[in-house]
């Protein structure tokens, strides 16, 4: 093993870790990355964002061919599903992207070490020692950046069994379409994977403890999304709790406790997607005295933990558990190590739910503004009035723009509709520039595009939308 002392040892090659490693190398640091998985990219690339989007896109095409082609005047025989092919394509997408990270590491001369990492602390010279499972000698670094991410939370009443009660990881690889998929948790992950299997022919029932979907999102958006998913055939049991599952004659019986009483539901797969918890076990943090706050690692503005030389980013620290937030933090953390005055703009973290229609948002919700007593005005525009949405036959949803009552600076933008995930970028950009609704309204938007809906919503702040 190498005697080399790296400038930076990154633990975890997920979106936070690999971005930090590459940025570090760009800034002239010698960088090592320790990753326990065989491939790079973390949960995001291997069993999260990327494979789920691959399946969402495939299943959407299937759904369109099955239900929407006819309306466009395309007459084809009812399509049939080759799930094996669909999964193979997904795996290929994942492989190409994880290989891409490996290529980027090579290009940036980043050393990769395979195995689980344990921090042994600093030696007398302040050099951090990182033990890598199966390696003869520890990896040495002047600084260590923890970027190990998170894992699915397990419910005591519903322990994962890897087959019928599963997390998102397994739900991306079912060998056949379940007959009835019970999704526990009405958040992003549950709704996205529920949508995949719904489109591929499964019956899908979502059980959510709260009376609404996607906690923390705009209430109107959540309501619209629920209506739309219901129309597609998804079933919801709101305010419900799954008390347990039993296997009876090869079939699963889930006991769902609702306000009115308990109910038994027959299903063949249960997806538990009720949240994620930071992956800190085994790193040896307690021994080193790394302090935690509310279950996450406590860091200062430099992402430095309570122990000198040890930094942390992404799902390990406070804030939304999102890949792009971790990526930003990875780059900013390393830049700050090198003395750059970089900052993550936490007021402008976009969030996207890749259902159909998609839901995307940035900034504060209307509910939050009301609660905090911040004076605001709101503008709204429905996609039904948008020319391009009509052409696409995707007229569900709306754009909502929230701005300061005086001054007009944008406070939040919430979109539910076709390609909301792409449309939100404009709102994030304008907000990052401290822009107002008027800034959007004064900007020319190509016609006919979906983005005109954002402009109309911005105009509606002053009740001057043209196409409304």
């Amino acid at each position: 093993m190498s005697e080399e002392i790296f400038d930076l040892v990154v633990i975890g090659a997920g979106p936070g870790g690999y971005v930090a490693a590459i940025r570090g190398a760009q800034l002239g640091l010698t960088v090592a990355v320790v990753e326990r998985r065989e491939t790079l990219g973390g949960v995001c690339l291997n069993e999260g964002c990327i494979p789920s989007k691959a399946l969402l896109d495939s299943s959407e095409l299937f759904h369109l061919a099955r239900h929407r082609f006819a309306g466009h005047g395309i007459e084809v025989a009812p399509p049939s599903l080759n799930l094996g092919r669909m999964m193979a394509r997904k795996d290929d997408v994942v492989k190409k992207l994880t290989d891409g990270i490996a290529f980027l590491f090579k290009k940036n001369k980043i050393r990769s070490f395979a195995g689980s990492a344990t921090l042994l602390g600093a030696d007398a010279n302040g050099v951090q020692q990182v033990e890598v499972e199966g390696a003869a000698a520890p990896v040495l670094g002047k600084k260590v950046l923890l970027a190990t991410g998170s894992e699915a939370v397990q419910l005591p009443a519903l322990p994962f069994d890897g087959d019928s009660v599963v997390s998102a990881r397994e739900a991306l690889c079912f060998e056949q379409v379940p007959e009835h998929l019970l999704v526990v948790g009405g958040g992003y992950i549950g709704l996205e994977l529920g949508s995949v299997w719904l489109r591929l022919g499964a019956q899908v029932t979502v059980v959510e403890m709260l009376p609404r979907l996607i906690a923390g999102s705009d209430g109107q958006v959540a309501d619209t999304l629920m209506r739309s998913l219901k129309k597609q055939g998804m079933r919801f049991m709101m305010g419900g709790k799954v008390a347990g599952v039993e296997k009876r004659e090869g079939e699963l019986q889930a006991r769902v406790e609702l306000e009115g009483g308990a109910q038994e539901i027959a299903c063949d797969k249960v997806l538990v997607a009720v949240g994620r918890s930071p992956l800190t076990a085994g790193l040896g943090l307690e021994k080193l005295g790394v302090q935690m706050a509310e279950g996450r690692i406590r860091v200062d503005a430099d992402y430095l933990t309570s122990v000198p030389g040890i930094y942390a980013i992404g799902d390990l620290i406070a804030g939304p558990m999102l890949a792009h937030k971790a990526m930003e933090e990875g780059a900013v953390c390393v830049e700050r190590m090198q003395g750059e005055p970089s900052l993550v703009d936490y007021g402008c973290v976009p969030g996207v739910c890749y259902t159909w229609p998609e839901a995307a948002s940035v900034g504060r919700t209307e509910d939050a503004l009301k609660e905090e007593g911040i004076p605001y005005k709101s503008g709204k525009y429905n996609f039904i009035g948008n020319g391009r949405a009509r052409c696409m036959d995707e007229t569900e949803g709306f754009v909502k723009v929230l701005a300061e009552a005086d001054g007009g600076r944008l406070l939040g933008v919430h979109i539910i509709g076709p390609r909301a995930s792409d449309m939100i970028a404009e709102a994030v950009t304008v907000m990052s520039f401290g822009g107002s609704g008027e800034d959007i309204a004064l900007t020319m938007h190509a016609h006919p595009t979906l983005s005109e809906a954002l402009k109309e919503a911005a105009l509606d702040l002053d009740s001057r939308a043209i196409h409304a």
Partner: protein
Amino acid sequence: MDIKVPAVGESIHEAVIARWLKKSGEVVVKDEPLCEIETDKVTMEVIAEADGVLSILSQQGETVKIGAVIATIDDRGAEAPAAGAAKVAEKGHPSPPMSPSGRKLAREMGVETQDIKGSGRGGRVTREDLLKSEAVPPAQAEPAPSREEPAAAPASPAGERVPATPETAPAAPPAKGEPVQRTLRKPMTQIRKRIAERLVSVRQNTAMLTTFNEADMSQVLLLRKKHGDYFQKRHNVKLGFMSLFVRACCEALQEFPEVNASIEGDDIVYHNYCDIGVAVGGEKGLVVPVLRGAESLTLARIEQQIAEFAEKVRNNRIAIADLEGGTFTISNGGVYGSMLSTPILNPPQSGVLGMHAIQERVVVVNSEIVIRPMMYLALSYDHRLVDGRGAVGFLKRVKEYIEEPEEMLLES
């Protein structure tokens, strides 16, 4: 109660919060220091004006304007939660809207964007506005307005001056065997940046030269030996060399008024008073407070004032007013053991005297080789208005006064 950035001097508009000494939510007692703020001239403490619970609104490293509220003290009792204050901080937008790259550039430049007129849509300060604002440094600005004149830059031997504000960065551990970290990169502090700017500007905008001489310190040492104890008893302060040099310089400055003058535009302004800046060493570095009307101060008063300045520097209580103005500067590199150095001018002043360590050296007196306690003297001067003759003459007078102190003591 709001805690505001105190006014520290006429030309100072903003400061950097160097270090919070207290945390948000902590109970503080009236007159306790809350934080240290740093301007380009001085580091000082901000004091609690009431008992209560502190809520910090501006974080460490932030640049704040004079008079800005940086914290509040809730004096309703220790239980009062700090949440209210945090909300206030989030609300409202004190700075004009800016692009993300512009904000980063502003942080890099340590610039407060409120001061800059934005040319972009909605008053946005663009990157170009920022770069333009930097392109007109004080030295090149029109000579007339005195807004940012580098008047009171603390002068002293270039190297030692800076208060190296103790950052809380993890100290690089001492290397045993092979070095652990070959370089350590850190952003310059506000003070350091300003000093760097000014030192370069002195080099670029004056015709600085240095002339040397040496003084036999025997008489001064003898004087101190004879009268030192009595002086201390009577005035409650030690009789140092500094007061004698201040007196010697005042006498010589009156004989060579151009050394005490400065250039303003196309005019030479002669000063009929001697405001002498003296370098005072503090824990955080050197600052140069000014003795006003030094020509009419007694030796005892000079020593007392220097002692007061030293006390203020130690406690971070030195005011910008103490540092402003000054017509001539004395810098004593001798306290660090310097044998000989060329001090750098403190514009718009035209002269700076460098004192050095006293060493016993072999000299020739009346054709005999003797051992005498000697000190090298250096005078850096602005050749634009001080001729070689004046500079050499001035330094020679200082030497004579120090070698024969009776003369100047009898004359005053």
